[in-house]
């Protein structure tokens, strides 16, 4: 169990470092290009990965310890950062993949409204003070996060299919085409991370130790996978670029 906890801490640190590097790079890119998509994605990574996740995790840890009021404050700060991340995330997908569709506007509005409703629910139950988390509102919050990641992965998969057909006609760059595949897999692994982040909040170490070990193991593997895929997507090394180019030429 201890080994898995250490491994989880290391992979968590790797994930934080990755989101910090990639998020900062995207914000700097946005300053240079003055384009909104890179700003939104960089904002989503920094707010979600660097602030919301760690703050909420710290809140859960402290809640069972001796500082419930600090836990409540951290939860509130984490929720605010998480809302900012969700707005950036959903607006990035809408703006990039569905700029003309009205249903996408509606979906973004629903995705933003649900966390706002959970703010009310959490506050009404005193979760931002000293009371425990209200689980009904927690599930609503988690469902929206999973929905946002699912939307992201689905749009990536659809566009990857289109890019593959373009590639056969010489209408697409192999590296950019591959970027949509990496993005889709990273989106799927993010969903795994969201699902596996829940059991540690419910399961007891003493009675469900093996299940917790398995959960933390899967969470860690998914975290490492997302980190590696983000690097290959947003900071591809020269050797990877060459490999994709060579593979594409061989296939064609």
């Amino acid at each position, binding site marked *: 169990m201890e080994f898995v906890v250490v491994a989880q801490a290391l992979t968590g640190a790797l994930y934080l470092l990755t989101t910090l590097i990639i998020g900062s790079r995207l914000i700097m890119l946005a300053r240079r290009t003055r384009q909104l998509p890179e700003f939104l994605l960089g904002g989503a990574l920094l707010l979600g990965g660097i602030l919301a996740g760690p703050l909420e995790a710290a809140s859960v840890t402290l809640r069972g310890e001796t500082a419930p009021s600090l836990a409540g404050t951290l939860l509130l700060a984490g929720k605010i950062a998480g809302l900012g991340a969700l707005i950036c995330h959903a607006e990035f997908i809408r703006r990039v993949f569905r700029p003309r569709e009205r249903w996408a506007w509606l979906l973004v509005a629903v995705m933003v409204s649900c966390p706002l409703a959970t703010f009310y629910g959490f506050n009404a139950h005193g979760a931002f003070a000293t009371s425990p988390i209200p689980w009904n509102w927690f599930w609503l919050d988690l469902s929206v996060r999973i929905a946002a990641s699912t939307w992201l992965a689905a749009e990536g998969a659809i566009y990857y299919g289109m890019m593959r057909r373009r590639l056969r006609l010489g209408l697409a760059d192999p590296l950019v085409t591959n970027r949509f595949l990496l993005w889709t897999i990273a989106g799927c692994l993010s969903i795994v991370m969201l699902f596996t982040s829940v059991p540690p909040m419910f399961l007891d170490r003493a009675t469900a130790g093996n299940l917790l070990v398995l959960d933390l193991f899967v969470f860690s593997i998914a975290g490492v996978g997302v980190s590696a895929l983000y690097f290959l*997507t947003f900071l591809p090394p020269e050797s990877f670029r060459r490999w994709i180019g060579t593979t594409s030429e061989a296939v064609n």
Partner: protein
Amino acid sequence: MSTSTAFEWLCGELESATELDRLASRGTVRIALKQAGLDPNAATADQISVVLQRVLPGELGSRGIEAADGICSEIAARISQAPIEDSTHDSPEAVFRRLGG
């Protein structure tokens, strides 16, 4: 939701150059674009040009249009003078090209 000017122009050209009616020509172009992985709402002149050379002749041939290659070549020759405006939206492809440096 509006389709791109390149799509509209190609549909009009195809309707004039073949016996296909408006509905059939639009359907044929949509199928050709889908085969090429392109979006009718965002297709550009360069992409339409490749579709005319590589995909559309086969689609027209399968609909019993004779001399499909010649028709497509003639339309392709006129594309540079066509009043086609590029989309004002960044395509996902353009965004992802930028994001990866």
